[in-house]
C-alpha cells in the first residue's frame, strides 16, 4: 500500500512538472508583461522597462525562465516554498493563503447542500422511474445543467436579494404568493409520495392546505421581520426529525432507536435555556466545536440505557438526531441576532447583499453578528452554486441507483423477505454511495478551481479572483501559484478517490496481488 501511494505521489510530481511547464510557456509566450509600460508616456519609461526586464528575467526565453521559477518551488523540500512575488511586489504565497479560506467558505456549504439534495432527488426519482416526478426532475436537471451561472447570478441578485429586501420592509406575503407556493408544495409532495389516484389527491390537498396555513401564520405573526424558533417550535421540529431519521436509519419498528433519538431531542430541549445563555456569552468557533463534541458524546451515551444488543444502528440514529438538534440551536441563535443585525447602520434594513464576502462596515467583535453576516453573504452564491452543481448529482445518483436496483443481491434481499425499506436503505443506498463518494472527492477539488466565475460575479476575493487578476495583469508568478495549488488539489483528490474506492468496495484492489 505504501509503495503504491509513494509511486502515485512520485507520478504526481512528474505530472505537475509537465503541466506546469506547459501552462507556464503557454502563458509566457502569449502575454507580454511590458505591454502596459511600452505604451506609457512616462519619460523614465526606458529605465523602468529595464528594471522590469531584470526583475522578471524577461531576457531569458520562457522554457529556461520556467526553471528559474522552478528553483523557488524546489525549496519545498527544505521547507520554504518560494512562489515568487506578484506584480505589486507582495509574496504570492501570502496572497494565496489569504484567498483559500474565502474560497472554501464559498463552496463548502453549497457543496454539502448540493450533495444532499442531489442524492435525495436522484434516488427518489430512481425509485419512481418513469413517473411524473422522475420526468419533472430529469427536465429540471437538464435545465440546471444548461444554465450559465453568471446569468442566473444576475437574476438571483435582482429577484432574490433586491425583491426580498423590499419584501422584508413589511414582511407580509401577498395572498397570490401563498396560493402558488402552496400549490407547488402540494404538487411536489403528491409526486414524491404518490400511490393510487385517491391517495395522490388527498396528499395534494393535505400538503397544499398545510403549506397555506403555515405561510399565512408566518405572514400574520410577522415572523419574517422577527424570525426565531423558540423552544416549542424547536421541540416540534426535533421530534419530527427524530422520527424521520429513525425511520430511514433503522426503521420505526426499532423501539430502542426511536426512544433514544426522542430522548436526545428532549435532553436538548431541557438544556435549552442554559445552552442559550452559554451561546450568548461564550460563543466562538472553539466553544461551539466543544459543545458539538459534548452533544455527540451524549447522543452516543443515551442508547446504552435503552438497549443491550445491536447498539450500533441505534447509536448512529441518535447521533444524526443530535447533530440536527445542534444545528437547530445555531439557527435559533442566528435568528435571534437577526433583528439587531438588520437595524445596524451598516445593514440599514437591507440584509441580503448582492456582492462581496463580508460587510466591512459592521462593528467587529460580536461573534453572532459576524456569523450572521457570513450567512447572509453566502445566500446568493450558495443558491447559484447549488443550482449548477446539483444537476450532475441528480443524474448520476439516479443512474447508479437504477443500476444497483437491478443487481442480483437486491433480488436476493427481496427473496429473503426483507422489508422494502431495508432493501433500499441497507442494500441499495449503501452500494449507490460507493461510486458517488469517489466522484464527490474529485468534484470538490474541481469546484474549488472552478469557482472563478462565481467569485467574479459575486465579487468574492478568493482564488478565482486571484486567477482572474493574474491573467489580466500578465502576472506569471501569481498565475503559476494559483495553478500549482489547484492542480495539486485535483491530483491529490484523484489519488484519494482511488484509495477510497478500494477501501469502500472490497472487489476493487488498487495494489496488485502479492
Amino acid at each position, binding site marked *: 500500500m505504501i509503495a503504491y501511494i509513494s509511486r502515485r505521489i512520485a507520478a504526481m510530481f512528474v505530472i505537475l512538472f509537465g503541466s506546469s511547464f506547459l*501552462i507556464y510557456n503557454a502563458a509566457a509566450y502569449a*502575454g507580454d508583461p511590458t505591454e502596459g509600460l511600452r505604451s506609457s508616456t512616462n519619460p523614465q519609461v526606458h529605465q523602468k522597462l529595464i528594471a522590469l526586464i531584470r526583475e522578471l528575467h524577461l531576457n531569458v526565453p520562457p522554457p529556461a525562465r520556467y526553471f528559474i521559477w522552478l528553483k523557488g518551488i524546489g525549496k519545498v523540500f527544505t521547507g520554504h516554498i518560494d512562489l515568487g512575488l506578484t506584480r505589486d511586489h507582495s509574496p504570492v504565497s501570502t496572497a494565496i493563503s489569504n484567498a483559500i479560506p474565502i474560497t472554501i467558505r464559498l463552496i463548502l456549504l453549497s457543496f454539502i447542500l448540493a450533495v444532499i439534495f442531489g442524492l435525495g432527488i436522484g434516488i427518489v426519482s430512481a425509485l419512481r422511474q418513469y413517473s411524473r416526478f422522475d420526468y419533472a426532475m430529469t427536465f429540471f436537471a*437538464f435545465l440546471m445543467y*444548461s444554465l450559465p451561472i453568471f446569468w442566473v447570478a444576475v437574476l438571483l441578485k435582482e429577484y432574490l436579494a433586491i425583491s426580498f429586501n423590499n419584501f422584508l420592509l413589511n414582511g407580509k406575503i401577498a395572498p397570490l404568493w401563498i396560493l402558488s407556493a402552496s400549490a407547488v408544495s402540494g404538487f411536489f409532495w403528491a409526486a414524491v409520495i404518490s400511490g393510487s389516484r385517491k391517495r395522490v389527491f388527498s396528499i395534494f390537498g393535505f400538503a397544499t392546505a398545510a403549506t397555506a396555513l403555515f405561510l399565512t401564520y408566518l405572514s400574520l405573526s410577522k415572523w419574517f421581520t422577527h424570525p426565531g424558533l423558540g423552544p416549542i417550535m424547536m421541540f416540534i421540529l426535533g421530534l419530527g426529525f427524530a422520527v424521520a431519521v429513525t425511520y430511514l436509519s433503522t426503521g420505526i419498528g426499532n423501539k430502542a432507536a426511536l426512544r433514544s433519538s426522542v430522548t436526545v431531542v428532549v435532553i436538548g430541549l431541557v438544556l435549552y435555556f442554559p445552552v442559550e445563555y452559554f451561546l450568548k456569552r461564550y460563543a466562538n468557533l472553539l466553544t461551539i466545536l466543544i459543545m458539538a463534541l459534548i452533544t455527540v458524546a451524549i447522543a452516543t451515551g443515551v442508547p446504552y440505557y435503552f438497549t443491550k444488543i445491536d447498539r450500533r444502528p441505534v447509536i448512529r440514529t441518535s447521533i444524526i438526531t443530535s447533530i440536527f438538534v445542534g444545528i437547530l440551536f445555531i439557527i435559533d441563535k442566528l435568528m435571534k441576532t437577526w433583528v439587531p443585525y438588520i437595524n445596524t447602520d451598516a445593514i440599514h434594513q437591507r440584509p441580503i447583499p448582492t456582492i462581496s464576502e463580508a460587510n466591512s462596515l459592521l462593528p467587529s467583535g460580536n461573534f453572532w453578528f459576524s456569523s450572521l453576516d457570513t450567512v447572509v453573504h453566502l445566500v446568493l452564491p450558495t443558491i447559484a452554486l447549488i443550482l449548477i452543481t446539483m444537476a450532475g448529482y441528480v443524474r448520476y445518483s439516479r443512474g447508479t441507483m437504477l443500476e444497483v436496483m437491478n443487481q442480483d443481491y437486491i433480488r436476493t434481499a427481496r427473496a429473503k423477505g426483507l422489508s*422494502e425499506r431495508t432493501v433500499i436503505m441497507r442494500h441499495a443506498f449503501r452500494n449507490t454511495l460507493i461510486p458517488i463518494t469517489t466522484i464527490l472527492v474529485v468534484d470538490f477539488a474541481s469546484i474549488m478551481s472552478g469557482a*472563478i466565475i462565481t467569485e467574479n460575479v459575486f465579487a468574492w476575493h478568493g482564488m478565482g479572483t486571484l486567477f482572474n487578476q493574474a*491573467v489580466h495583469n500578465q502576472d506569471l508568478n501569481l498565475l503559476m501559484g494559483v495553478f500549482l495549488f489547484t492542480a495539486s488539489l485535483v491530483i491529490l483528490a484523484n489519488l484519494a478517490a482511488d484509495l477510497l474506492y478500494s477501501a469502500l468496495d472490497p472487489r476493487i484492489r488498487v495494489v496488485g496481488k502479492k
Partner: protein
Amino acid sequence: MASLFKRRSKLVEVDPESDIFNKETEGLSQGQIVMKRFFRHRGALISMVVLFTLIVFVFSALGFKVFGVGYGGWWKYKITDLPTLRTEGCSIELPGCPTLSLIPGKHFGLGDHPFGQDDLGRDYFSLVMRGAERSIEVMVVIGLVAGFLGIVVGAIAGFYRGTRDAALMRLVDFIITIPVIVLGSVLGYHFGSKGVLFLALFLGLVTWGGLSRLVRGDFLTLREREFVDAARVAGASNRRIIFKHILPNAIGVIIVNVTLLMSGAILLEAALSYLGFGVVPPDVSLGLLISQYQDSFTTRPWLFWYPGLIIIIVALSVNFIGDGLRDAFDPRQRRRISRKDRAAERQTAVKK
C-alpha cells in the same frame, strides 16, 4: 412516507424473451433500432426540431459568405448599423424597447426591433443573432476538434495498449489536471482576438481528455471480444479491425459523449467571454453580450434576457439530444412497458 419505498416499477419482472421485446428488435438493423428508440424519446425529438429550427433561423438572419458565395440574410439591420432609438410605444425614459409580440393582434410578429435596442440604438436582434452564430460555431468546432482528438487518442491507446497507451494516457493526465477554465482562460485571453474559430480550435485542444479516456476504456474491452479474435484469425489488418469491427461498436459512447462535450462547450465559451477571456469586441458572442449589459438589467431588462435564453435553449436541446442518444444506444435499456403494450400483448395471447 411509508409508501416512499413501495415498489412501483415492475420493469424487472417482465420476461425479456416475451413477445414485446422480440417484436421490438424483429428484423431491424442496429441503426434502425437506434433510430426507432431515439424517436420515441419525446424530449430528444422536440429538442432536435427546436435546435434545427433555431440554427436555420439564426444563420439565415444575418446572412453568411462561404467561398465567395454570399447570402445577404433576411434581417434589415447589420450589427454595425446605428438606427435611431425607437420611442413610440416605449416609456419616455427608456427608448428602444423590444417590439416582439406573441399576442395575436395589431402588433403581432417581430416588428422593427424584436429584441429592442441598446443605449446607442444598435439593433439588439442582429447582435443576438450574430452572438448565437458565434456560439454555435464555437460549439461545433470544439465538438469536431475535441471529438476527433479524443477518438483518435483513445482508440490508439485502447487498441495498441503497452507503451503507446502509457504515453498517451500520461498526456491525458497532464491535460485533465489543468482545470479547463484555467487553461481556456490563458489561451482565450491571448488568442481570442485572433478570431472565434481560432479560439474554438484552442479550446478544442484542451477539452478532449475525458472523451479519450472513455473511448480507450471501450476499446480495451471490445478488443478482447470474440468477434475481434474471429476477424484477426480471418486475416484482417489492424486498420480494418479498428474501423470495421471496433469503432461501430463504440460509436454509441462516442456520439453521446461528443454531444455532452458540445453542450459543455457552449457554456465554456460563454463563461470565458463573460470573464473577458474569450471573444473580444467588435465581434459579438452571447457571453460577451451578457457581460456587457448585465448592469442595465434594472433599466433595460431585454438586453439581458435574450442572450441568456438563447444559450439555455441551445444547451438544453443539445443535452436532451444527448440523453435521447444515450437511451437509444444503450443495449441494456429496455423500453417502458406501457398500458397499451400490455393490452396488445394480452390480445395476441388470447388469439393464440
